[in-house]
């Protein structure tokens, strides 16, 4: 279970949110909504442990993620704005390395299967620099296939740059993760039909007059 306690985040002079308490039970898909600048990405980075909150704590299975560290990250798969794809590596090498790096293992067969599931069969040996934005996004998302054992997926705008079939493949993947009892936290501006039950959290961008406060 993922929980936050009185989370507060300040970036520069702007207070993005404070007193944020959320709970995500196994099998939940939590959709963080809000306009640009509302602090969605900051919230996700805090939930991952990449960013320290100004105040408050993030709890994973009852333990603070700041003390759990590697134990928490073992359970986490994160796909951010950046794909984490190396231009000079082939699609297959990228996925395989992502698997090895996460400690969940990555061999050629599983990596190729992951690429195939995202419609990149036949592109295994292509260097990522020659692929389109959407295809690179798919390579980045392919590591979710190797992350079935990760109980928590945090996805920042995962549907960006994907075509209709890519969106379908990803939402199926999210549905399967939910069915396994995994937790998904995601942001998206697109109106994507997600298969399972979706909880929604709305973040409100701070008004300019509040910025000085």
């Amino acid at each position, binding site marked *: 279970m993922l929980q936050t306690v009185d989370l507060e985040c300040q970036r520069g002079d702007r207070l993005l949110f404070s007193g944020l308490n959320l709970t995500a039970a196994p099998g939940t898909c939590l959709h963080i909504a809000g306009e640009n600048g509302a602090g969605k990405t900051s919230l996700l980075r805090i939930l*991952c442990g*990449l960013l320290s909150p100004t105040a408050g704590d993030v709890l994973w299975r009852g333990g603070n993620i700041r003390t759990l560290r*590697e134990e928490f*990250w073992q359970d986490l798969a*994160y796909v951010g704005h950046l794909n*984490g794809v190396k231009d000079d*590596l082939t699609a297959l090498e990228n996925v395989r390395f992502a698997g090895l*790096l*996460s*400690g969940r293992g990555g061999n050629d067969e599983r990596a190729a299967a992951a690429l195939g599931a995202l419609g990149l069969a036949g592109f295994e040996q292509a260097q990522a620099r020659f692929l389109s934005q959407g295809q690179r996004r798919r390579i980045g998302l392919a590591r979710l296939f190797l992350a079935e054992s990760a109980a928590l997926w945090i996805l920042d705008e995962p549907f960006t740059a994907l075509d209709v079939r890519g969106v379908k493949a990803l939402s199926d993947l999210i549905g399967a993760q939910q069915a396994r009892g995994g937790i998904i936290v995601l942001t998206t501006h697109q109106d994507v039909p997600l298969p399972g039950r979706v909880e929604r959290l709305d973040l409100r961008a701070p008004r300019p007059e509040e910025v000085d406060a």
Partner: protein
Amino acid sequence: MSRTLLAVIRRDLLLALRQRADVVNTLLFFLVVVTMVPLGVGPELNTLRTIAPGVVWVAALLAAILSLNRLFANDHADGTLEQMLLTGEPLPLIVLAKCTAHWLTTGLPIVFMALLLGVMFDLGVEPTAFLMVSLLLGTPALSLIGAVGAALTLGLRGGGVLISLLVLPLYVPVLIFGAGAVESVAGGLAPTGHLLLLGALSLAASVMAPWAIAAALRISME
């Protein structure tokens, strides 16, 4: 655990192979800096013999500094670094692997290039051999200490100059003992003390630097 270590080293070596220009440029820079000195100082052989160890070592420091930018910057730009910070594997280990790969692509080639430079400066067989040994023992410390600076300045504007200012003072002991070892051989003394200290510096750096680099990366990514 060692599987991750090897995977990171393999990946970085593969990337270095695919971006050969980066590696080759650093080594050419090293060669050009060393070659400039006789042109500036003049062709007096005795003078050149005396200053050669120092010149080679200073050039090695500069080459190391120059190559440090690419150590984390690329991974930072494409998001791989985020993934490295968010794995169940210990970050100091991953960082140690990256430093090893950096050393294999800059430090180690410099050791072999010193053979050529020994001939160029007419150092003689024994001093050249010890120049190579001193570089072999000392260059790992350059990669490791430099990586701390690279991690601290990650994502800053003008980070390149800042790295030099942060890291060069820390390189002073390596420079002193490295060049000192060769000078003592040339002067007929035993270089053992210098070499032992160089090795100690590299060992100490390989134990302590990964933790410092890991902490610096986490701060830089906030």
